[in-house]
């Protein structure tokens, strides 16, 4: 006997469906009403505040915003380029360190210890101190062929974020069940082949959401290279503010940063959602 695809719902099922529809409409109406109420109250509270006019002049001046925008955008372009380079560098470094930490056998002890020492040190060190040491201290050595400050600053970001990303990768590697390794080794794959074809593909897929989350955090921190001289979006806004005694350029930079983050965060959310669906068997 085969199951019929055409099914006439019973009165009981029709009543249940009608009730569910009414509940949905009601929920939407309540959500809309409460959002409108909260929004109105907030608007009244802010615009009705005694100092609102002063704040609007010094933070939301449209003319100053228009003047500052090109300069802030120029700075932002530096952020974007630095983000792309540093994200790639930090991901590669993190992956390398994570794999080195999984190597077994006494021969690899020094490598393992070095990799572990690296993640301990750079996750503990404040980024600003790494930046100062690399961009101000290292050039002081006056070595031949010293790279420009921007590269040194990028290196500081890569070193710091590489430490975090290595731990994320390591968590992913350790989450792959030992039976997967046994299966791969039983087929005659070497340790390296097992890592490359069986463990890492599964590990990276599993930790893609937290990896991307760290890249979103990196996006905000790349601006710190401005401490060593290069002018990023925030530094450009600061200069503009110093010239006009008006804080509007900061708001402009803030809005641009959020706009820049939206696509990255959207991708992260989507990857997370897809991973969750795959986990539940889809």
């Amino acid at each position: 006997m085969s199951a019929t695809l055409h099914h006439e719902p019973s009165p009981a099922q029709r009543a249940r469906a009608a009730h569910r529809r009414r509940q949905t409409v009601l929920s939407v109406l309540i959500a809309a009403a409460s959002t409108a109420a909260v929004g109105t109250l907030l608007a009244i509270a802010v615009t009705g505040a005694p100092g609102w006019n002063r704040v609007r002049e010094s933070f939301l001046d449209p003319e100053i915003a228009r003047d500052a925008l090109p300069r802030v955008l120029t700075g932002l372009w530096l952020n974007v380029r630095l983000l792309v380079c540093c994200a790639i560098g930090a991901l590669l470094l993190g992956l390398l360190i994570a794999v080195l930490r999984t190597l077994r056998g006494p021969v690899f002890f020094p490598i393992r210890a070095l990799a572990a020492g690296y993640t301990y040190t750079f996750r503990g060190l404040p980024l600003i101190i790494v930046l100062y040491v690399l961009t101000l201290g290292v050039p002081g050595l006056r070595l031949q062929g010293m790279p420009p400050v921007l590269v040194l600053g990028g290196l500081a970001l890569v070193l710091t974020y590489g430490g975090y990303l290595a731990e994320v990768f390591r968590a992913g590697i350790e989450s792959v069940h030992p039976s997967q390794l046994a299966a791969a080794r039983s087929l005659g794959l070497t340790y390296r082949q097992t890592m490359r074809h069986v463990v890492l593909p599964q590990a990276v897929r599993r930790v893609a959401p937290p990896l991307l989350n760290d890249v979103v955090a990196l996006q905000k921190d790349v601006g710190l290279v401005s401490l060593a001289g290069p002018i990023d979006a925030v530094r450009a806004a600061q200069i503009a503010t110093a010239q006009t005694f008006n804080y509007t350029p900061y708001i402009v930079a803030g809005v641009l940063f959020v706009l820049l983050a939206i696509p990255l965060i959207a991708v992260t959310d989507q990857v997370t959602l897809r991973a969750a669906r795959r986990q539940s068997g889809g």
Partner: protein
Amino acid sequence: MALLRCRGLRKEFGGQVVLDGLDLTVAEHQVVALIGASGSGKSTLLRCVNLLEELHDGTIELDGEEISAPGVDPDKVRRRIGMVFQSYNLFPHLSVLDNITLAPRRVHRRSRTEAEARARELLDRVGLGAKANAYPDRLSGGQQQRVAIVRALANSPRLLLLDEVTSALDPELVGEVLTMIRDLKADGMTMVLATHEMGFARDVADQVCFLDGGRVVEHGPPEQLFGEPTQPRTRQFLARIIEAGRL
């Protein structure tokens, strides 16, 4: 000549002796079933033969060559031995076809075309040709286990180790896997299988070994071992199995 010869195997886990001077000989084209209670060392024995576990004593010979000797490359040994696990252990990120061709391509350096042609041929033979591009989580347990067996066969192993391959399956799916193993026996594949399926062991095995306390307590053809066991421990074990309605 014996294809596999284990002598005096010893294995401990944290002070507990799992294999205690175990001897086992398997001739070519022979099917040997390992039976015994949980913890009697069946799985450990199979993992030791495949060099997935470090031995604490004894020697293992495959085709007359001592594979447990120091300096032997375990990766090279494992290429000649296929292994199938209780929980299938398919690679979830790879399609059925890629699961099967991974070792032929990466270990045996076959071309993709060659490896895939052979994989499809093997899949067709077990009626899974239509599933070549599916991912493991889309298959039933029985289908996954049959893919796992095909994956082991794609390496053309000399010896196939089967570790409780039907234990994780729903009762109605056990049959399709057992049929496949029967077909392999007909093709002359040498197999060592740990199993709780006494009926199947009696049906397919040339030799049945009863393991207890890390040793082979009794072995012989199935009629003899199930019909007139000589050791009291074997009789006890079989009585419990019959009581549970498993024989």
